[in-house]
C-alpha cells in the first residue's frame, strides 16, 4: 500500500524559494507561480492517447526536464536514489504523476513548479526509458490528478 495519492501538498513549503521565509521576513517578494507557457503541452498531438509510443520531440523535452529536476535524486540512468529503472510501478500513470506532484518522503513535490505539459513530458520520458515501456502520459492525465 502506498499513501501517495492522498498526500496533500505542503503548499507553504515553497515560499523559501523566493527568499520569503514567513510573513515575518522583511521585504520578501511573493512566491511566483510556475511558468504557465504552453510550450511543452503543445507538443502533445491531439490524437495521442495514454500509453501510446512517445513522439521523439516529447522524449527529448522530457529528458531535459528530468535532468534538471529529477537527476539529483534518481541519477542520470534512473538507477540511483530510489531506482526508476525497470520499475513496474510506473505502469500506473496516476501513481507516477501523483508521486511527481506530491513528493512523498524525501522527494520534492512539483505541483507548484511544473505545469501539466512539463510533468507529462517527464512522466512520458521516464515510462519510456531504462527498460520501462509504458508509453505516454498526457497533460490531461496530470490535470486530472491535481
Amino acid at each position, binding site marked *: 500500500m*502506498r*499513501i*501517495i495519492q*492522498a*498526500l*496533500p501538498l*505542503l*503548499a*507553504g*513549503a*515553497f*515560499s*523559501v*524559494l*523566493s*527568499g*520569503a*521565509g*514567513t510573513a*515575518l*521576513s*522583511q*521585504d*520578501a517578494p511573493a512566491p511566483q507561480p*510556475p511558468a504557465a507557457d504552453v510550450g511543452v503541452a503543445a507538443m502533445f498531438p491531439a490524437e495521442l492517447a495514454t500509453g501510446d509510443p512517445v513522439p521523439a520531440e516529447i522524449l527529448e523535452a522530457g529528458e531535459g526536464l528530468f535532468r*534538471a*529536476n529529477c*537527476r*539529483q*535524486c*534518481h*541519477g*542520470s*540512468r534512473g*538507477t*540511483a*536514489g*530510489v*531506482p526508476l529503472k525497470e*520499475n513496474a510501478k510506473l505502469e500506473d500513470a496516476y501513481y507516477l504523476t501523483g508521486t511527481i506532484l506530491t*513528493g*512523498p*518522503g*524525501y*522527494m*520534492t*513535490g*512539483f505541483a*507548484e*513548479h*511544473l505545469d501539466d505539459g512539463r510533468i507529462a513530458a517527464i512522466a512520458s520520458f521516464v515510462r519510456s526509458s531504462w527498460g520501462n515501456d509504458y508509453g505516454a502520459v498526457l497533460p490531461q492525465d496530470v490535470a486530472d490528478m491535481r
Partner: protein
Amino acid sequence: MSKGYVNGRLAAWLASASVAAMVLGQPALAEIADYSEVTPERLAQPEDANWLQTRRTYDGQGHSPLTQITKENVGQLTEVFSHATGPYNTLAEFSALPARGAHQAPTIINDGVMFMTVYDGQVIALDAVTGEEYWRFNRELPQGLVPVHPTNRGVALWGDKLYVTTLDAHLIALDAKTGEQVWDQTLENWENGYYSTLAPLVADGVVMAGTSGGEFGIRGFVQGFDAETGESLWKTYTIPAPGEPGSESWPGETWKTGGGPIWITGNYDVEEKLAYWGVGNAAPWIGALRPGDNLYTTSTIGIDPASGEIRTHFQYHWNDSWDWDEVVPPTLIDLPGENGETEKLAVRFARNGWIYKLDREGGELKFIEGKPYVYQNVFKSLDPVTGRPEYNEEAVAKLGERVEFCPSAWGGRDWPAESYDPATHTVFISVNENHCGAMEAAEVEYEPGVLYLGSGLEMTPTEAARDHIGALQAWDVRTMEKKWQVNFKSPNWGPVLSTAGGLVFVGGTTDSMFRAFDAETGDELWSVTLDGGIIAPPVSYEVDGRQYISVTTGWGVDGDRFQGFINAAFGDEGDVPQGGTIHVFALPQT
C-alpha cells in the same frame, strides 16, 4: 549588563547601508565592545548565567541552574522581545526545494551577547536583553546545491571566535566581536553529497566537525582543526578503510560509500579528554546491500581531540536497515552511588526505540542495560553482556519485498535533544510513538552527489496515533523507570530545556505552542502560542540579575515530512506555520 555599540560605527552603517546590503549581510555592522573571551575553564565550568554551548555543558545535559523562574511564578512569563531571523537567501537554483528551511539552533549566550544561526548560511549576533543586532554574517551558497535538510544547529565559541558549519560543507571561523570571517576550511566537496548542519565542538583548542550526507553515499568523518589558525590536524573516518579495525564489517568496496554521517554535536568528557560522537545511518538504507555490522555506523565513538584516535565505540544496532541514525551522543552523567562512589554513565535514548545505560569509566563504553521506551518490533532481545540486538527477521528489509517495522525511520526519538536534571537524576525527552514504517528494497547504483537509498520511506500512523504520537517522557536514570509521560496528539519535535526552578520547557508540536511543565509531575504550568512550530532548543540565561528563556520558531525539514504522512493517513490538511523568530521571555519586572 548589556553590551554597547562601538561609538559611531552603527551610525555610519545606518547612513550608508541599503536594504540590499542588509540582505547580503555585510558583516561588521557594529562591533561588540566588551566581549567576554571564552576560555577552556569557562567551557568546562560555565557560569550559571550563560549558555555557551549547544547543550550548555560539555556533558550534554541541557539543564540550566537558574532558579528565578519557578513553578510558582512561571505563569507570569511574558515576552521581552522577539526578533525575526529573516530576510533569507534563495537557497537553490532548482525548481523546487525538497524541504522547508528549519531553525534548529539554540541561541548561544555569552555575558549578554546572543548568537543565532539561520538555515541559509547566516549568523546573527544580538543583544540578549534588547534584541538589537550587532552584526549579521552571510555566506553565499553555491548554485546547484539542493539541500535535503536546509537547517543549521548553531555556533561554537572559543576565545574571541565563533565557529559554524555550512550547507556547502565548510567550517568557518568568525570574529565573534565583528562577524568578520577569520578562516574558512573545506570539510568536503558538496558536489559529492556532503553538507554540514551541526554546531562544531571545541575542546582544548581543537574545533571538531563532520558532515551529513548519509542519504548520498558519503564516507563520514570527524575532522579536527586548530581553533586559532584553522589548520587541519586530523580527519578520522567513521568507516574504516581496508586493514583498519572494523573494516571486516564492510564487504568489497562498500566502505567507500557507506554513509556514517556526523550531524549532531558531540559531547565531551573533560576528565577523560574524550569526545563522544554519534554516527548516523549506513548507506544505502538497505542492509542487505552491504552485509556485515558496518562499523561505526549507528554507533557512538569516543575520539581523542588531540590525535583523532577512536578510543572506544558502542554500536546500538548492526547492519541498519531502518534509517535509524544514532547521531545524538549519549548524555554524560556522574551518578552518586549509595556508598559514596560515583557511577560514570553514558545514557542514551536511541532512535531505534531503546534506552541504553552504558558505563564510561576510564573512557571505555560498556553496556549495562537497555529497555524500550516506545513500542519497537525489530529487536527480539539485547545480549545481556554486550547489548547486541537479535533481530526479528520479518522486520528486516529484503530485496524486492515490502517489509514493515515499528517505529518508522524517524524513530522513537529523532535528533531533538533531551535534558538531564542532576538533582533529581531525571532525563526529560521528546519522543514519537504509534507510527510504523515500511521499506521496499531495490538494487541501487552509486552516482556522486545523487541520493543513494535503495528504497523509499513510508510512515503510517497506527490506530493509537489518533490518541497521540508525540510525548514528553521523564525517566529516573537510577532505576531506569519512567516517572511520567505527557501526550500530545501532534508529533513532538521539541528539544528539551530543564531548569533548577523545577521546570521543563519544550515546543515541538504542530500547534506552534511553547510550554512549561512541572518537572516533578508533568503538569502543564504555562504555555504560549507562537508564530511557528518550534524545533529549536530552548535555553535559559541571566543578565543583570534577570532570568530569561529563549526559543526560536522555524518548522521545516523532517517535521514537515513526518507530518505529510500523518496528514495523508488521517485526511488532514494544512501546514505548520514556519515562523522564523527568536522569542525571549522573562518575569515582569517589579
